[in-house]
């Protein structure tokens, strides 16, 4: 991700994340429920901040929402994105050259097997052809890294504030603003 795009994404992510945390009524939740709420806020914020330029954000939002419409989202997705579905196995067999070294066949089988695993790891991957899957995986990895970076800075900032709570209220508010500014940049 180039500089300005990365910064815009991180800021959008942070904003959505904090808004989502704020609206979470965690008072009555168990620790496990609270952890799940924070994680799903982070994922929803990442998907929202990414927007419509990829498939995985919608898939991620669909899988974390519990609304009935999420079960029909593959249909919506296919209509909206004109995604090619693949029949990898039959195509590969048809296109197979008659003479192929066994090591190459093993490698091809391995590639197919691992492509299938990758499909499961990228949200929305099941509906994509191999090439789109590679593009989505790249986009997903790049944004996952940004998500990790922002979450780490937020937790470091909060930890720092908790550790310096002996300061007066006025100092703390300036410290907090400064830290928040740093996290966004």
């Amino acid at each position, binding site marked *: 991700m180039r500089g300005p795009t990365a910064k815009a994404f991180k800021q959008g992510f942070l904003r959505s994340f*904090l808004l989502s*945390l*704020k609206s979470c009524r*965690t008072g009555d939740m168990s*620790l496990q429920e*609270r*952890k799940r709420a*924070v*994680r799903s806020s*982070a*994922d929803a914020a990442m998907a929202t901040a990414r927007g419509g330029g990829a498939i995985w954000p919608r898939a991620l939002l669909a899988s974390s929402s519990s609304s009935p419409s999420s079960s029909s989202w593959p249909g919506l997705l296919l209509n909206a994105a004109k995604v090619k579905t693949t029949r*990898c196995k039959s*195509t*590969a067999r048809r*296109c197979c050259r008659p003479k192929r*070294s066994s*090591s*190459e066949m093993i*490698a*091809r089988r*391995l*590639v*197919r097997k*691992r*492509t299938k*695993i*990758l499909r499961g*790891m*990228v949200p929305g991957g099941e509906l994509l052809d*191999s*090439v789109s899957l*590679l*593009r989505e*995986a*790249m986009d*997903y*990895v*790049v944004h*996952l*890294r940004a*998500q*990790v970076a922002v*979450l*780490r800075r*937020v*937790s470091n900032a*909060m*930890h720092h*504030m*908790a550790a*310096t*709570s002996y*300061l*007066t*209220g006025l100092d*703390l*508010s300036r410290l*907090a603003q400064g830290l*928040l500014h740093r996290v966004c940049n």
Partner: protein
Amino acid sequence: MSGRRSRGSVSEEEINELISKLQSLLPTARRRGGSSSSSSQASTAKMLKETCSYIKTLNREVEDLSDRLTDLMATMDQNSPAAEIIRSLLR
């Protein structure tokens, strides 16, 4: 990932370019001086494995950081000046 697509609009060079771009994102990116066709499937298989492993690692990091944040927010629930500041920022 078939090398030939009778109706495809993506060439094999584009696929190889995608693969090498993806590989450059991975933490274990290793530069090969031009992959030969005989080993291209093998290196693709390796790259796919590393990609899956990297995504798994990143998701685990997000999970750990979320847990850490949950704990920090819990300590913030007490009536400290820090807690009030954070609450006001989240408001």
